[in-house]
């Protein structure tokens, strides 16, 4: 199945795009999507312990499953205000 992955701030710069399509195996969790992405972009790897994630613009745990067509987002630590 296919998901849209949105990336922000430093993660966006590492990947070189704010939004990419990714093929992931059926039943994949957010963690699987992230690990596949980090395998292709090794500079992402150090963020594994500090990212947050979202599915369809709602915060979600990395253990959460993703579905075909979902918008997945990975967020580095936030710094608003």
């Amino acid at each position, binding site marked *: 199945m296919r998901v849209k992955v*949105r990336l*922000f*701030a*430093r993660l*966006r*710069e590492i990947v070189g795009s704010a939004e990419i399509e990714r093929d992931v195996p059926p039943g994949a969790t957010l963690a699987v999507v992230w690990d596949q992405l980090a395998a292709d972009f090794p500079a992402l790897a150090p963020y594994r312990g*500090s*990212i*947050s994630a*979202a599915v369809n*613009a*709602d*915060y979600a745990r990395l253990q959460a499953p993703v579905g075909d067509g979902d918008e997945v*987002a990975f*967020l*580095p*630590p*936030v*710094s*608003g*205000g």
Partner: protein
Amino acid sequence: MQRLQIMAAPLSLDALTTVVVESTDGPVGGVSSFLGLVRGENLGRRVRFLEYEAYDALALKVLARIEQEARAQWPSATVGIHHRTGRVEIGEASIAIVAASAHRADAFAVCRYAIERVKQILPVWKHEHFDDGETWVEGATADPDDEAARQEARRRACA
């Protein structure tokens, strides 16, 4: 104008105050506000300007969540939060928060609670530009369900 907004245009505390006061159901006896400004220096380096990036769709939901949390704790208060995106110059406002309530204590508390929660969970990122480089500021790992973080925000609000 909405009370909760992520916006590229310059912020107006006056406009936000008006909309918050007008949308408060009960009597308003106090208004507290916070304006966060872009500082021209951070950790000893001169900052030229900042750029803010947001995940807009999620950020709006998070602002609504912060509003709900504040309302659960301080039911008589109304809050408005406007966060700027894009390039923001030194001295300009990056965030405006207004809280209105029947009494001053709740207005102060809600205003402080809101900025603490923004720092913890709002999906917005600050890109600092210096004379000789740039860096993304990375603060808190956002976890809206982290009860300890929420308690800490509440503690600071009531200090």
